[in-house]
């Protein structure tokens, strides 16, 4: 029996394409599972943290510390009545949440979350796929994600939804420019679009203890621009104009119920996680961190550091939500075009001069 198993393994490992396929399928499944779980628990984290900031407890009833609340929410969303109002434009009304959630989940495919490890001589990187224009792919996919929100607002045939959709598309197009420009400084320094190369360019320390992360090597303004633009791109407070509940009922998802509403929710939190991943990779050295212990820890620790940095970013998101009020719409546009864009350009030019020096 054991011989049969060994010979089967030998046969399997003979062809590199089989290893590649198996590794890709396993990685995709694991990453998707982890991402969806993370999305669910980000919602829990947000409710808990904002609750404590407002002197409340947040969810406590389902499971210890309310830890099973995401499962209860999921079951509730699945079993609620799925209403489709009679006045909507049906094809796009159904397609919009799908577009939003699919493109929000797609961008995780190029995000590297650790070093590579070796099985029988094959190097398997901890990333679903390493394309050499990984960063551009993420920017492209997130820019397509706008359609989910815009079409949801339009197809609902409701003035509040339409206003939400219009605000969302105007806001996302405006801030996408600052978002892209804020990352160019890092690109000039690393000389590559591949996220793995960008992380590898940030290894090492100054004087043995300050890590060589881009945030410490002159990209602070770039990081500030990225952070602001990322809040606006994910429609989070203080830029949550598209779903401002005091003005627009619920904005673009007013007419959605049950699982379709949950899809918009999932898309928003998945986008938050993608943005946090990108910030970690571009400015905070990705999975770089102190390594020690046996060989197995050298594979596990980078993943841990990467996850820890992302959780820190998500906490920052929630902290800001618990602290700041919402911008007015003209303030939002003025901030994006008259302050953030010039600042990102200045950062770009300064970095270019510094690198050319």
């Amino acid at each position, binding site marked *: 029996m054991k011989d049969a198993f060994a010979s089967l393994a030998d046969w399997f490992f003979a062809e590199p394409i089989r290893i590649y396929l198996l590794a890709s399928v396993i990685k995709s499944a694991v990453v998707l599972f982890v991402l969806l779980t993370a999305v669910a628990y980000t919602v829990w984290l947000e409710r808990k943290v904002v609750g404590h900031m407002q002197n409340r407890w947040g969810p406590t009833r389902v499971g210890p510390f309310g830890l099973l609340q995401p499962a209860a929410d999921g079951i509730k969303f699945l079993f609620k009545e799925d209403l489709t109002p009679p006045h909507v434009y049906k094809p796009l009304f159904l397609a919009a949440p799908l577009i939003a959630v699919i493109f929000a989940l797609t961008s995780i495919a190029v995000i590297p979350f650790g070093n590579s490890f070796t099985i029988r001589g094959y190097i398997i990187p901890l990333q679903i796929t390493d*394309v050499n224009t990984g960063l551009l*792919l993420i*920017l492209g996919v997130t820019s397509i994600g706008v359609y989910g929100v815009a079409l949801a607002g339009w197809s609902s045939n409701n003035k509040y939804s339409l206003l939400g959709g219009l605000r969302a598309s105007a806001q*996302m197009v405006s801030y996408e420019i600052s978002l892209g420009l804020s990352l160019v400084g890092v690109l000039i320094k690393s000389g590559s679009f591949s996220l793995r190369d960008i992380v590898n360019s940030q290894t090492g320390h100054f004087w043995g203890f300050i890590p060589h992360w881009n945030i410490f090597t002159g990209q602070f303004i770039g990081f500030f621009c990225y952070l602001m633009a990322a809040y606006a791109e994910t429609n989070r407070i203080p830029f949550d104009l598209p779903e401002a509940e005091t003005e627009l009922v619920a904005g673009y998802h007013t007419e959605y119920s049950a699982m379709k509403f949950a899809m918009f929710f999932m898309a928003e939190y998945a986008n938050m996680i993608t943005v946090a991943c990108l910030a970690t990779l571009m400015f905070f050295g990705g999975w770089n961190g102190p390594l020690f212990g046996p060989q197995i820890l050298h594979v596990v620790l980078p993943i841990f550091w990467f996850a820890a940095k992302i959780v820190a970013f998500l906490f920052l998101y929630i902290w800001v939500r618990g602290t700041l009020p919402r911008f007015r719409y003209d303030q939002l546009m003025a901030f994006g075009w008259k302050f953030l864009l010039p600042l990102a350009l200045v950062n770009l030019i300064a970095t270019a001069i510094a690198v050319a020096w």
Partner: protein
Amino acid sequence: MLNVHLILFLAFGAVCVAGAVNLLAQTHPINSALSLIAVMAALAGEYLLLGAEFVAAVQVIVYAGAIMVLFVFVIMLLNAGVEEHTQGSRVAILFGIPGVLLGSILVAWVVLQHSGTESVPAGALKGDPVTIGQLLFHQFLLPFEITSVLILIAIMGAVVLASKPPTSPATAPARKVD
């Protein structure tokens, strides 16, 4: 490997043509705009098959992600309704269709004249960002800069056309008092 490329090429091409036909056939502007996005995305797929990853990514970011969002935005803002199909004009039948045929034949003839009998294998041309950057900022620097100035002029023109003439409070029409 070549067969996979061929199948993918035909699939993307089919999506592209189907999207373009659908763009003309749809009566609602937003459906037409969405068909155009499908065409753009399929074109990005074709670029990817050629090994031009950078151009493919830029195609998605610029056309599908920015320009078409503005199209959709304007359609939403104006709340354009369903349009009627015309029965076809005589000019289109007399001049348009023969003109398009003639143009296509001309383009095909020119392209076939200059291409050899051998086809270039997919991915043989370098399309990585470094090569494109070197070409744009060394060999084609002047055309590149001239194009950017041209676009800037177009933007300024649009701003001038769109902005209302300034009205001073004295000449502004007085508000009607009920």
